[in-house]
């Protein structure tokens, strides 16, 4: 070069041929990592589903989670409307594990804080916002579009136990407790009107292990609120628990014939009775209808009032009517009663009711001939409730029964005397009317008469002891007889006066 000293020569070292190729390991590793991440992302990517709700309160796209048993299994991606804008359609993406869960009967609901009587749930949603809960169904049919529940289901799937249905007259609020010996063993899940609108089907869930106590003969009854029964036995108040006092509930117990019962299958349909008494009644399989025609007031007799035979409840009043005979202008009140012979049979210790196979009318005729009569009696003085009593009155006047009348007639026997209330009221009215302060003069007169009668009797006594035809007492006797005659006149005058003014006995002479 131009400036003096030449630069020193550097030694040339041949390059390694291997190392440069090693650099390509980096993109290969990167590709492997990237591929692995991609595969993981794709694998974690589960099914996308849609759920329709009535509204999307509290739901946020990209934020609201889907949770199964409080484990996050997905996220809401999008919130939109159905084509007719009737519902809100949630598009959600689930994790891969959830793929087989998306079956026909999988349920979705929006979990929000819920404060019900007896329990508080979903408090965490107050902070974190609502989430969509899901409950995996047991169906095998896959599904991707769901209709969400508007209510949080009471019992989540997978809870051991069995579901039953009880048909009753009244709805029980979902979530109401089910009791077994005052132990809460389940909940009411649904309450739906039957298709024909006549009864309510109450879905019940009884948790394991209590579900094995539910047999085909188990009786369910409403345990709601205060049950105050006002019947001929007086007032009865019964409360199952404080919760049922507010929201109602259902109790069950083995039925009267529980011995041969088998465990009830899932979905078994029971009857929901109104009360424990109703539930525990012998099932009245056979019944006979009769009519009792009363010619007196049936005030205090209600439909459902008992029909008793010597104090044993045999049946009930099913109808109260009114008959009018235009010819005689006579009103009668026919009372229809239903007798359950089974109840009598159940209590029978000796003999049998079925000894003689004969038709019901023939048997009724024989019984009436023996004196079977129906009477209206007061069951409770306090309430004035009445019931129909059946008994045998052999002295009762014989009656002719209408053999073709249906239902058969049991002749009525009036019992005014036994109508305690009526007679007491009458007595009270009489006493009230008694003018006790005006009876005085009348009593004085009666006293005079009695004194005269007394002296006359003592005279007669003397006469009887000293009587002789020629005795000197004959003159006395004459005098006695005259006195008796005077006394008799006095009595006769009193009798006349009383006959003319009978009220003077009470009101005194005016």
């Amino acid at each position, binding site marked *: 070069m131009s400036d003096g000293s030449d630069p020193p020569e*550097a*030694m040339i070292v041949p390059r390694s041929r291997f190392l440069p190729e090693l650099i390509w390991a980096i993109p290969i590793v990167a590709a492997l990592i*990237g591929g692995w991440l991609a595969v993981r992302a794709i694998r974690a990517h589960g099914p996308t589903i849609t759920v329709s709700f009535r509204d999307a309160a509290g739901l946020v796209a990209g934020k609201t989670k889907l949770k199964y048993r409080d484990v996050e299994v997905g996220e809401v991606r999008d919130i939109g409307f159905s084509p007719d804008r009737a519902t809100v359609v949630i598009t959600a993406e689930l994790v891969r594990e959830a793929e087989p869960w998306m079956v026909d009967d999988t349920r979705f609901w929006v979990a929000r804080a819920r404060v019900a009587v007896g329990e508080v749930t979903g408090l965490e949603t107050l902070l974190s916002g609502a989430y969509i809960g899901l409950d995996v169904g047991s169906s095998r049919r896959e599904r991707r579009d769901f209709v969400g529940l508007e209510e949080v289901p009471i019992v989540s799937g997978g809870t051991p136990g069995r579901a039953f249905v009880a048909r009753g007259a009244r709805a029980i609020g979902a979530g109401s407790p089910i009791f077994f010996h005052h132990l809460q063993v389940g909940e009411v899940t649904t309450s739906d009107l039957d298709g024909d609108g006549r009864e309510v089907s109450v879905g019940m869930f009884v948790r394991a292990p209590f579900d094995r106590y539910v047999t085909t003969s188990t009786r369910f009854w409403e345990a709601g609120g205060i049950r105050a029964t006002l019947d001929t036995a007086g007032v009865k108040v019964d409360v199952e628990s404080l919760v049922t006092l507010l929201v109602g509930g259902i109790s069950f117990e083995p039925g009267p014939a529980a011995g041969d019962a088998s465990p009830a299958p899932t979905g078994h349909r029971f009857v929901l009775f109104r009360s424990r008494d109703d539930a525990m009644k012998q099932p009245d399989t056979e019944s006979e209808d009769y009519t009792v025609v009363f010619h007196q007031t049936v005030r205090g007799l209600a439909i459902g009032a008992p029909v008793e035979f010597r104090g044993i409840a045999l049946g009930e009043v099913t109808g109260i009517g009114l008959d009018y005979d235009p010819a005689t202008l006579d009103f009668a009140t026919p009372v229809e009663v239903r007798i359950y012979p089974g109840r009598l049979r159940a209590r029978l210790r000796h003999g049998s009711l079925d000894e003689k196979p004969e038709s019901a009318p023939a048997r009724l005729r024989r019984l009436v001939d023996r004196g079977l009569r129906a009477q209206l009696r007061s069951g409770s003085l306090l309430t004035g409730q009445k019931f129909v009593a059946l008994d045998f009155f052999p002295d009762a006047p014989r009656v002719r029964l209408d053999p073709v009348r249906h239902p058969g007639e049991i002749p009525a026997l009036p019992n005014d005397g036994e109508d305690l209330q009526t007679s007491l009221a009458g007595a009270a009215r009489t006493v009230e009317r008694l003018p006790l302060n005006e009876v005085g003069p009348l009593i004085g007169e009666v006293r005079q008469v009695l004194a005269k009668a007394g002296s006359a009797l003592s005279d007669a006594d003397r006469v009887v002891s000293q009587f002789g035809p020629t005795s000197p007492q004959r003159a006395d006797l004459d005098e006695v007889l005259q006195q008796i005659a005077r006394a008799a006149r006095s009595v006769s005058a009193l009798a006349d006066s009383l006959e003319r003014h009978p009220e003077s006995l009470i009101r005194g002479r005016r």
Partner: protein
Amino acid sequence: MKPQTAGRAGLLLCPACGMLNRCGRTEAVSRRPGCAHCGLHLRARKPHSQSRALALLLAAAILYAPANLLPILETSSPFGSQRDTIMSGIKFLWTGGSWPLALIILIASILIPLAKLLTLGALLFSVHRRWRGARLQRARLYRMLERIGRWSMTDVFVAAVLSKLVQLRGLARISVGPAAIAFGAVVVLTMMATRAFDPRLIWDPETVEA
């Protein structure tokens, strides 16, 4: 007129001590290998510059996808848990009103890495095809590429700091997602690729032709 360069003069400049060495023709002229002054291995060009830069660039490009698609931050608190990708974080900031911050993150985390990938790719392509035009611009582009390289690490830095700072046991938890690693790798790989690329190659075709 051809510019005089060290290469054309048959000289090598030691980058460590600044000494000029002559390119040796035979092996046993000097006893010591490398720079006669300080012993540094002297190279006329960075070895395998193109293939190294390409390999690193390719690796960075591959990892750019998961870095942006996967969540970078996983936040969990009683108010719900959340997984944020870089883009969703930017969207959140933008809709939340702090658009200057969103803009900064957008530029630093998405645009700069992307720009680096593209420009380095373009430079490599141009060198490979021995383009002759716009050499000055390409040289400037490369210098800029080197300068902005480290800025992309802000995102990873923020994520790392947050995940260590916000650990309120039982209340809130922030953890770094898989994208953070990928993103860090992207930044490091692009920087390495930039380093591996020899800007002298931009000027080389002229020298070679000459």
